[in-house]
């Protein structure tokens, strides 16, 4: 099966869901990139382009949601969550309004656009808003299913999507998306690897490499970063006593931080965070950048072995 970007899954989901549900979709001049254009072409009366004005987009989204209509608002992660942070915090978070901020082009896999567009802090800032649900789907199957799930959920959601086409990991015929549930994909007692988004595929590659060496890891798909599925995290930390977190995000404030916050209070466990180590990105191809920052199977294998050596 060909690789598919999760932003494409998002656009397809919106266009399909528009037939069943009443909601509006907004964009800030990036509808081709975020793929909201698929919805816009089909339901032009419910699509609202705000031009390059993300702060107003979020404010308008809040106003629409205040009348009872759910809204999806999209741009690149940098601008949807970064530029409009305060509007999200006050007009969407505090009000608990039904706005779904679906942000594409997150992380370094934006690629050639470089540091100004590679937002690796979005989960950190969105996670800090009280009541905000933060999700990061792994592939086409999961992203497509997640969009309907967040539409049915009444309240603010931040959904992280990618630019880069990624392998389809889950079988659409059997896959069921359950919001708030971390899903173990492999079982192994040597180390628990919590990951989300594009890193799920790479964590599964690491699983195979390690298995060949006789090391068994549990890979847990933590698509909902907030609220964290504490029960599953604690269960696997207790089982393995060694934890690695993997994400295309800063090691500050993302899943790595969320897991450390939980474990340090409830079950002190050694944790290695694989992520962007408090630096800005650079231009390059998506795959090159993931390799540059150690966000690949080799990097995960290294982190697991470090844990085992402790």
């Amino acid at each position: 099966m060909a690789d598919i970007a999760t932003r494409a899954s998002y656009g397809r989901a919106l266009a399909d869901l528009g037939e069943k549900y009443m909601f509006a979709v907004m964009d800030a001049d990036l509808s081709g990139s975020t793929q909201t254009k698929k919805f816009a072409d089909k339901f032009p009366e419910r699509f609202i382009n705000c031009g390059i004005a993300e702060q107003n987009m979020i404010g308008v989204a809040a106003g629409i949601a205040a009348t009872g209509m759910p809204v999806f608002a999209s741009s690149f992660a940098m601008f949807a969550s970064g530029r409009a942070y305060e509007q999200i915090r006050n007009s969407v978070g505090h009000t608990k309004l039904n706005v779904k901020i679906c942000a594409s082009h997150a992380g370094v896999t934006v690629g050639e656009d470089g540091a100004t567009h590679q937002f690796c802090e979005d989960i950190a800032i969105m996670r800090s808003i009280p009541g905000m649900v933060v999700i990061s789907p792994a592939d086409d199957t999961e992203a497509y299913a997640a969009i309907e799930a967040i539409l049915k959920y009444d309240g603010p959601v931040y959904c992280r999507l990618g630019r880069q086409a990624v392998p389809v990991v889950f079988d659409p015929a059997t896959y069921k998306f359950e919001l708030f549930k971390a899903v173990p994909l492999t079982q192994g007692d040597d180390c628990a690897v919590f990951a989300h988004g594009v890193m799920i595929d790479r964590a599964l590659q690491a699983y195979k490499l390690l298995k060949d060496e006789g090391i068994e890891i549990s890979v847990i798909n933590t698509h909902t970063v907030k609220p964290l599925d504490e029960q599953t995290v604690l269960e696997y930390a207790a089982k393995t006593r060694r934890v690695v977190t993997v994400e295309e995000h800063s090691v500050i404030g993302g899943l790595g931080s969320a897991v450390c916050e939980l474990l340090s209070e409830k079950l002190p466990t050694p944790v290695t965070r694989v992520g962007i180590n408090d630096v800005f990105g650079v231009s390059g191809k998506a795959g090159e950048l993931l390799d540059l920052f150690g966000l690949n199977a080799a990097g995960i294998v290294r982190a697991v072995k470090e844990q085992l050596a402790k």
Partner: protein
Amino acid sequence: MEQSKLLYLRKKAAQIRRLIIEGVYNAGSGHPGGSLSCADVMAYLYFEKMNVSAADPQDPGRDRFVLSKGHASPALYAALALKGYFPAEEIKTLRKLGSRLQGHPDMHTVPGVDMSTGSLGQGFSAACGMAKAAKITGAKYHVYTLLGDGESQEGEVWEAAMFAAHYKLDNLTAFLDYNKLQIDGDVRKVMNPDPLDEKFRAFGWEVRFIDGHDFRQIEAAVSSGVKDKPLMIICDTVKGKGVSFMENAVGWHGKAPKQPEYEQAVKELDAALQEFAEVE
């Protein structure tokens, strides 16, 4: 406007001003100046113009009001209390721990508040969203919003202004409380937003410039909207209007009166109310 209606609205504005002072005094903090300057617009909206009812605050067909200059919450709370959304006595709990009457309006705690506001610029965008939603669904309600003149320094205001004109939101009426003072001083000295009428006109709005304390002018302006354009009514007002020592005094932007000041303000406002003792 008939004389009886005029007197009725002036009485409501006087009652709003009295409650503003009651609330801010009891809170020991808050924003009296910019609440007093917009009291007449609030009286006109809640007691003449808007199709709203305290009996059904969530009626989907109701007109909406968004106080984009959320720090003027005492004026909104006063209008809502007088309209019957909650007991007027409750204004004394303003800003206190456990009160519904938060420092800035909260849509989930106060019946009648259509949007939580406080961070400047955001209410204006939300009002645009409510108006746009009505265009999508065909709902017939009208959306009103009130901005401050200092608020117009926020970039988001101009993003929203562009949006409202682009989407032809003729179901949106904005008031701009042009009281010419902000925390740091004269609006024109801090960061001159003038000429606001020309700017909004250039952004595609239908614009009126009126005396914001004159109900006849408010009424004429509100009913002068045109098809396919949002309406901006710039209200020339006096900050602190109705309390002599607060009028045009920047120090009263965000400060509560102490007891002797409170007593003086009450004396003046009660005397003003006395004029309307016979008005129903």
